[in-house]
């Protein structure tokens, strides 16, 4: 058997794949956080809860309406995005003039409420969501066994990340968004409906989180706690990447996911905390974050 650094190649590649999958979720989530923060100046603590909502909506759609994975992949983000837009319009938008910390505290309360509600109805244990038939099974690549669904997650989240990046960097709507990030008053004076833009942005961020949630449902189990477990790690990712750049958020997400996966191979005890350790080191060397502009 081939060995790499004294570790069987199979195990090494297996953990690398898991790292890549975790990295995909980190990238999707930190991307959404960065988009929301860029325009709204709000750190969306409810991002984890919206990710969890995505997974639950997909599961409930399957259970009660018989809607399959493929439709859920489109519908669940729409539902959660709409929910996010309503929250933004009715409540979050009242906090823009205040210290950004209030936005963080509000979304923290929102996250607790959503998580608490689902825990009340569904308990803390996870529920399975089956891999769709078309993506079941695996394929032998010769050097490792690849479960098809995991490969799919990596590919589709890369596409979603690049798609969002293109939307923001290359389209007219994205140009408005970037302009409003720089100077909302001026953009408003040019006749762009900035409040609507803010609502759309928050909805988009929530939808991205829900999309990640649907993707995650067959990999992990659908559980009310899945959101708060991941959001704190994503915060660390965001601190490392800095929220100044969309591409930075994506790259950092993948990098840290892979770093976490590799730690599992070489020193499993530290795999829970490796991202936080990296965060501390980055803070020492480059306090503004790897891709950050603002301190």
């Amino acid at each position, binding site marked *: 058997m081939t060995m790499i650094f004294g570790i069987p190649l199979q195990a090494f590649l297996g953990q690398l794949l898991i790292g890549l999958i975790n990295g995909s979720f980190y990238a999707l989530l930190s991307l959404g956080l960065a988009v929301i923060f860029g325009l709204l100046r709000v*750190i969306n603590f409810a991002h984890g809860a919206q990710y969890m909502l995505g997974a639950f909506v997909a599961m409930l759609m399957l259970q009660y309406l018989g809607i399959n994975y493929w439709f859920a992949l489109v519908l669940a983000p729409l539902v959660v995005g709409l929910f996010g837009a309503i929250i933004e319009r009715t409540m979050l938008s009242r*906090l823009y003039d205040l210290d950004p910390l*209030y936005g963080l505290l509000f979304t923290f309360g929102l996250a607790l409420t959503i998580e608490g509600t689902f825990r009340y109805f569904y308990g803390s244990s996870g529920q399975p969501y089956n891999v769709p038939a078309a993506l079941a099974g695996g394929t032998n690549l010769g050097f490792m066994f690849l479960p098809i669904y995991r490969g799919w997650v990596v590919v589709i989240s890369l596409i979603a990340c690049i798609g969002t990046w293109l939307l923001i960097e290359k389209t007219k709507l994205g140009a408005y968004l970037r302009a409003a990030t720089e100077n909302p008053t001026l953009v408003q004076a040019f006749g762009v409906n900035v409040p609507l833009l803010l609502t759309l942005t928050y909805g988009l961020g929530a939808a991205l989180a829900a999309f990640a949630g649907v993707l995650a449902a067959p990999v992990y189990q659908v559980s009310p706690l899945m959101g708060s477990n991941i959001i*704190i790690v994503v915060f660390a990712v965001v601190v490392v990447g800095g929220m100044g750049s969309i591409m930075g958020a994506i790259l950092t997400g993948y990098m840290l996911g892979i770093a976490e996966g590799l730690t599992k191979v070489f020193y499993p*005890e530290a795999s829970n905390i490796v991202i*936080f350790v990296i965060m501390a080191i980055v803070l020492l060397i480059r306090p503004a974050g790897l891709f950050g502009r603002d301190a």
Partner: protein
Amino acid sequence: MTDIAHSAAKSATGRSATAARSYAIFIVIGLAALVVAPAFFYPIFLMKLLCFALFACAFNLLLGYTGLLSFGHATFFGGAAYFTAHAVKEWGLSPELGVLVGVAGAALLGLIVGFFAIRRQGIYFAMITLALSQMFFFFCLQAPFTHGEDGIQSVPRGRLFGLVDLNDTTNMYYFVLAVFLVGMLVIWRFINSPFGMILKSIRENEQRAISLGYSVARYKLGAFVMSAALAGLAGGIKALVFQFATLTDVAWQMSGEVILMTLLGGIGTLIGPIFGAGLVVALENYLATSQFPVTIVTGVVFMVCVLLFRRGLIGEFYASRLGRRLGFEHRR
């Protein structure tokens, strides 16, 4: 160098002579209530309340008086609970020394976390403290001395100074009350010192404080360590009261809870967090007997507070007509 601090203090005292008298009256009433309270309420409940009140006031030192939102204060509270429990149970230290070990440990943790966190501001500060406290949580989950999911159980209360038996609930209550009062006195003295004035100036306008020549980072770190040590005092006492230390105390939910207490009572008011803590503890006690989950209530209260009630209970009272007539003034 401390001219500004002095003049601010002077004008504050000039304006609030009535407030000083009102404060004095409230303090006397409050003290009397705390002394006779065990006759009316379940002492364990009161002790829990005092622990959390001190914790919230320590937290408020940072949020209310320095403008730094720490999302990881559970680390210092729960960390100290572990240290005290370990020192008393495994090393056989007396309770007062055990609590001191907890305070010292929390201060050290505060120094480490603060060292990293003050490198960034505002929202990033909150995220860094949260991430580091999650790291500490995983450390406590795996470290041998914390006994993982079980926590440190049946911690002996021992004899205070080798004399007073703390297994007696009444003795324990007055010991907790004394520690609470000492903690409050330290906080009061701290925020009214020149150091505290400089912290307030950092809160109001950090750039200006820098341009006036203050080494802002050092003051922030000082405030952070102070706040951590006092949170540790609360945590150490809590370990003795309940005779155990568990992962609940270091989890992020605990950090959220102390924020809620402070927000509910009134950010930046000296006594607000005490009332906030009282309300949250009472609410949790009440809900514990019902089927309804605490998290939902906490979450909704959080949202309502942020949307409609940002001054908190005491802040609203200070700003109300009665409050102003009594000479209070709510700034911020």
